């Protein structure tokens, strides 16, 4: 009986280990969300990173919800596993995996950052991803996506890079660390946009028939709407190109 009680108690004690990382106020979370889009100018002085896990965790869950919305709208077909499992796996895998990898690189490059700070930094960097995907899953224009990818994604990447640069010494180390992080972050956004779009070129062919000239076959996603929207979208994209 005593052993069971002590095991149960240690379970509760484990929850208390995480308690200081959730000690935030709503205004702080809002301020940090906005700050995550603003690159800092002062890179000679180590920038303060709040070691908080509530905001990043909520952002990862929001990204999961947005991904689900995107996958449903574009009729993604998952062969092995489930829609929900894929979304959760992708988002959490990215957050935890890339954080650990960058933390390992930071350890190699002698950067002053702790694991919790890295988790927090990358988590808040997902705010840009959430905004971009939320907008571009609803308004399906590829040129709009590229603008958002460079603008919003670029801003949040720049902020993370600037913070890391301020905490690292030496040009080679800064280059390695920040180059890796920037590449992974931007590529993840690209992946999220394109992988969960079902590019149904076969359906395009059967719908438009042989009348469609080859240069109008632009890869784009197919929401579950009627052909009229499909046709007008094709004409609009062909006009803008």
């Amino acid at each position: 009986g005593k052993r069971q009680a002590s095991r149960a108690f240690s379970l509760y004690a484990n929850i208390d280990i995480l308690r200081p990382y959730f000690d935030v106020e709503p205004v702080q979370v809002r301020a940090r969300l906005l700050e995550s889009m603003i690159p800092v100018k002062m890179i000679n002085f180590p920038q303060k990173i709040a070691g908080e896990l509530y905001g990043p965790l909520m952002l990862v869950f929001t990204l999961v919800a947005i991904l689900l919305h995107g996958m449903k709208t574009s009729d993604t077909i998952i062969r092995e596993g489930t829609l929900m499992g894929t979304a959760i796996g992708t988002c959490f895998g990215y957050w935890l995996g890339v954080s650990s990898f960058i933390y390992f690189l930071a350890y190699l490059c002698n950067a002053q950052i702790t694991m919790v700070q890295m988790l927090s930094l990358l988590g808040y960097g997902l705010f840009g991803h959430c905004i971009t995907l939320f907008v571009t899953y609803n308004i399906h224009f590829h040129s709009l996506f590229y603008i958002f990818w460079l603008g919003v994604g670029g801003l949040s990447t720049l902020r993370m890079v600037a913070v890391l640069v301020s905490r690292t010494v030496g040009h080679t180390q800064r280059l390695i660390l920040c180059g890796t992080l920037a590449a992974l972050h931007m590529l993840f956004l690209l992946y999220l946009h394109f992988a969960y779009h079902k590019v149904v070129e076969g359906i395009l062919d059967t719908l438009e028939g042989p009348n469609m000239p080859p240069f109008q076959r632009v890869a784009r996603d197919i929401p579950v709407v009627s052909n009229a929207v499909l046709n007008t979208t094709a004409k609009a994209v062909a006009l803008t190109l």
Partner: protein
Amino acid sequence: FAGLADVSISEDMPVEGEITVPVGSRSPDEDYSTLDEPVRDTIMRDLKAVGKKFVHVMYPKKSSALLRDWDLWGPLVLCVSLALMLQGGSADSKDDGGPQFAEVFVIIWFGAVVITLNSKLLGGTISFFQSLCVLGYCVLPLTVAMLVCRLVLLAGSGTVSFVIRLIVVVAMFGWSTLASTAFLADSQPPNRKALVVYPIFLFYFVISWMILTFTPQ
């Protein structure tokens, strides 16, 4: 007693003994023993408790009945019925089905556990199972929405039915979120209510999304 000064009991030797006081043969607990009553009484009592909680959810007032005697029967029934109704939708090919039974089950319970942990970590005074109980019971409006959606889909699946389903699901989603907030927000420090409400909002949003995008085959 000087000779006893260096006699000491080691700290880790357990002290044993019995401190029970022999009670009289007629203790008041024996009158409340529920082991001898007919099974029908037990079931009816539990059903009445579950029914009362359903009523509390549909008309959320700030009462503590839902919190005091928590039970998980209601959430289990709601979760199973919702998962059964979401079964087997939108199967284009054999490989992809709609959300499967296990998926819905896991989402609801895993989501409820995460929200509970979050509210405890933010300094909530509610216990683990009380929070699970409230979140599970507040799935009731969404189950009603699922029922209505299935009935509407029997009539047809055009734009009109989509608009009706959208309105119903959004209304029930708002009701669920408000109901659970009415019960859970009181147990939080007053300036952190928004931090607790947001994950609840996300949780019911995901469930509403699964209901809205359900297309039967």
